[in-house]
């Protein structure tokens, strides 16, 4: 029995710290299965003249029940916040189980791939 290849497209992991809530993946997803909620805060950095607007990611959901694993979201993300991982074991007892939020998407282990 062969092992699962590391490049297998099992799931998509999110690095929330890299995500800028730019919505590109949401708008490009052909299945409309990514949802994002975010808000902006003003950050004043030492030495900066004006405060800077920074997006804060409040919610990031992928609906694996709908996702067709096309990888368009991974490809279009300009900030490499999404990455393929080989993990595949996340069946759901109810369809809602397949809607993964930030926490579960960050749990997918990128070091596996």
């Amino acid at each position, binding site marked *: 029995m062969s092992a699962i290849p590391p490049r297998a497209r099992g799931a998509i992991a999110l690095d929330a710290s890299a995500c800028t809530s730019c919505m590109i993946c949401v708008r490009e997803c052909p299945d*409309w299965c990514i949802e994002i909620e975010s808000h902006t805060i003003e950050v004043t950095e030492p030495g900066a003249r004006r405060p800077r607007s920074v997006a804060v990611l409040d919610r990031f959901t992928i609906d694996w029940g709908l996702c067709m694993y096309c990888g368009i979201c991974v490809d279009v993300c300009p900030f490499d916040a999404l990455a393929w991982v080989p993990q595949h074991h996340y069946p759901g007892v109810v369809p809602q189980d397949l809607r993964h939020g930030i926490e579960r998407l960050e749990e997918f282990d990128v070091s596996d791939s």
Partner: protein
Amino acid sequence: MSAGSPPGVVLDPWLSGVARLVEEGFDQLDLLTAVDLPRDGVIEIVIHLVRIEDHAHVFGHVRLPRADPVLESVTSILPAAAWHEREIHEMFGVEISGHPDLRPLLLQSTSGPPPLRKDTPLVARVETPWPGAVEETTGRRSRRAVTPPGVPPEWLGEGS
């Protein structure tokens, strides 16, 4: 972009055109289908016939007005065309004159607009809120008109 004519011969009138090809030995029906070309205002009917002896094959086509497309049935010379014509009838809303049995072939219900006409709304796309309509800076639903992909404004009707 309007599509150019496909390769092959124009068969207009249709029935006698197809009959001529069949007489020339192209009597094996390989394909009979339609293409909706809304920008040209036509439904294009395409037939592909094969002559078994020398493996020759030929495409034939005819353009019908989109508003009132009527196609002569070729079942009298090519009985195998019956299912293809039923499919063209239910999927593209083309009337088939002289067809012996136009019962729906694949569709569960023929009450709606023909599904393979390009202006037939995809109901799910109209009814599902597009997650991309959320404003990236505020996270609120955008008041800008951000139209979801694959949903022409006509599908949303006036007022939206």
